[in-house]
């Protein structure tokens, strides 16, 4: 088991290396192939009145004139040991792990990311609990009452949930529950300014519900399908033949088996979400990683986009790893192989 974990960790590092190289190429190599000169890239980082000579000097200073692999090498080295950026007036040190340095806002990217991560974490934590509990419970009830009015109506709601985009449900619920009825906090309530856990939950409630609605829908459908399958298994009949209460048959025998594939999806969804919930954060003006990424893209601030992308990749790769390890815990048949 330990060698398996070590092997997977080494694999994760290699994968991260590849992801970083690919992302780096997309931002710094592809424009060059497209015909952009180092000076074109540098022109974004100087004032509008800058002359050709000044732009070229900036390009040299920022290293855009170097071959692309040298630039990537510098970036990769920065992650391991840190890097000094010379942006003109002074030399700025970006300590390891340095995920890049924004020449527009003139600061290293990583502290920004760490600053915004708690907001995204707040969003993901609450929403994931809601959608997991809500989706699985709905799915189980739907499967047990298959074909009933309850089943059909909840599956109808679920279909709406997967189909409607966040910016629709989010804005609609904001207008009704926040601005109309005044039950929830208005948009833009930063959870990090909360004075108490209750206040934190109050500020996050609407984003949680909106985001959870989207995910719960697919979880409900997944759980329903899984339960319909497992409840027909022979071991369910055995559990009933033992005289087990129906409630225990459903939860301890049926759901236990149906939950395994759901766990896989849950890990991946959570990993993906931690890289930033772009639509939800934008809709509710939450200063999380998603919003950060959107702003960076709008400002053409490539190092920031690169940083968010890499952080997201880290979360997804580790979520994958954890899911694979949990699989062995959940399903004993995987363990012995």
């Amino acid at each position, binding site marked *: 088991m330990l060698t398996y974990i070590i092997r997977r960790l080494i694999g994760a590092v290699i994968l991260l290396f590849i992801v970083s190289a690919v992302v780096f190429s997309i931002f710094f190599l592809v424009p060059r192939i497209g015909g952009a000169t180092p000076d074109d890239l540098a022109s974004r980082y100087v004032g509008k009145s800058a002359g050709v000579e000044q732009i070229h000097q900036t390009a040299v200073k920022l290293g855009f004139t170097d071959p692309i692999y040298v630039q990537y090498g510098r970036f990769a080295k920065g992650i391991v040991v840190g890097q000094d950026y010379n942006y003109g007036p002074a030399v700025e040190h970006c300590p390891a792990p340095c995920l890049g340095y924004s020449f527009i806002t003139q600061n290293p990217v990583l502290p920004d990311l760490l600053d915004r991560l708690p907001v995204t974490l707040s969003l993901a934590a609450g929403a994931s609990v809601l959608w997991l509990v809500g989706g699985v419970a709905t799915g189980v009830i739907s499967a047990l009452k298959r074909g009933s009015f309850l089943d059909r109506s909840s599956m109808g709601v679920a279909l709406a949930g997967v189909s409607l985009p966040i910016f629709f449900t989010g804005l609609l619920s904001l207008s009704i529950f926040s601005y109309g009825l005044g039950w929830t906090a208005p948009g833009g309530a930063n959870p990090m300014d909360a004075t108490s856990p209750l206040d934190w939950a109050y500020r996050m409630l609407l984003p949680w519900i909106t985001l959870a609605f989207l995910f719960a829908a697919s979880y409900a459908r997944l759980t329903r399908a899984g339960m319909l399958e497992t409840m027909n*298994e*022979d*071991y369910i*009949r*055995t*559990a*009933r*033949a*033992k*005289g*087990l*209460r*129906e409630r225990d048959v459903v939860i301890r*025998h049926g759901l*236990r*088996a149906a939950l395994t594939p759901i766990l896989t999806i849950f890990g991946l969804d959570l990993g993906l979400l931690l890289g930033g919930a772009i639509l939800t954060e934008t809709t509710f003006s939450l200063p999380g990683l998603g919003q950060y990424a959107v702003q960076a893209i709008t400002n053409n601030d490539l190092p920031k986009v690169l940083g968010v992308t890499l952080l997201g990749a880290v979360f997804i790769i580790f979520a994958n790893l954890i899911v694979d390890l949990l699989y062995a815990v*959940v*399903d*004993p*048949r995987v363990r*012995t192989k």
Partner: protein
Amino acid sequence: MSTDAAPIVDRSAPSPAGPFLQVKDLRVHFPTDDGVVKSVDGLSFSVERGQTLGIVGESGSGKSVTSLSIMGLHPPGTAEISGQVVLNGDNLVGASAEHIRRLRGKDMAMIFQDPLSAMHPYYTVGHQIIEAYRIHNRVSKQVARKHAIDMLDRVGIPQPKSRVDDYPHQFSGGMRQRAMIAMALSCDPELLIADEPTTALDVTVQAQILDLIRDLQQEFNSAVIIITHDLGVVAELADDILVMYAGRSVEYASAHEIFTAPLHPYTWGLLGSMPRLDRERTERLKPIQGAPPSLINVPTGCPFHPRCTYAELTAGASETERPELVEISPRHHVACHLSAPDRQRVWENDIKPSL
């Protein structure tokens, strides 16, 4: 295939309160879009404690449906069940689901065909036996665990103390069926239903499992119903045999009678299609021609008549009139229109020499 062993309970003198398990005119119908599936249609039999009944028939003859209705395992709303299932004086048809649940596992238990799919893959064998025991016995986990180890030991699992923590997939097929039996017997049930207990097992293991069921039955003095399509299995174990066809009983007699003086053409067919080592090898097995009927459109008259070689001997009666199950000789029931002389002649001339 001798059944000369002294019966534990004298069949001729049932207890004054009636037999331990009595099934009377059991009907299990499933309404479907295509029509009503009459899986079991007027079935009656009884079993005493310490006695074994074999229910034999082809796939789809209603054997398993019968056992599931006794156990009350048909999902509510799917099956229309009528008639009587009296266990120890207690009629289970129409009893509350909760009442039957309390009886399940404790008073009546069941062993299933494929022990790999019948055990939960995510729980250890021990956990599943402990769970079964603790449903009906208020004991601590430690006590239940000790009981589970005892049970595994009793059904012949080597090193039960360590195997108790194994998962079903770590057991071999025969071991799994032993564990399944241990689970079924963990609460000392008075009635044990074994639904094709050896079908999924190697031939070498089959005999061991049948021996085990017989030994445990004598130890626990329980009533046993063995459901099978394999006459060889019931030859080993059963005191009585009920032959089912299209949801009905076509012949019901002691095992000895069924093997030495069978009366129904379908029973003849089953006996003829049984592989035998003591038969000439050049002779081919004699399968019963045709396929079992649809249970939605059961043939009129005798449901077996389209496949029966001797139907024309009844002068058309078997095509129009359903034969009732009648007692031809003491405790030997058959549902067939053949007249006694015809039957005797066919049996002596055609069937007996080829068996």
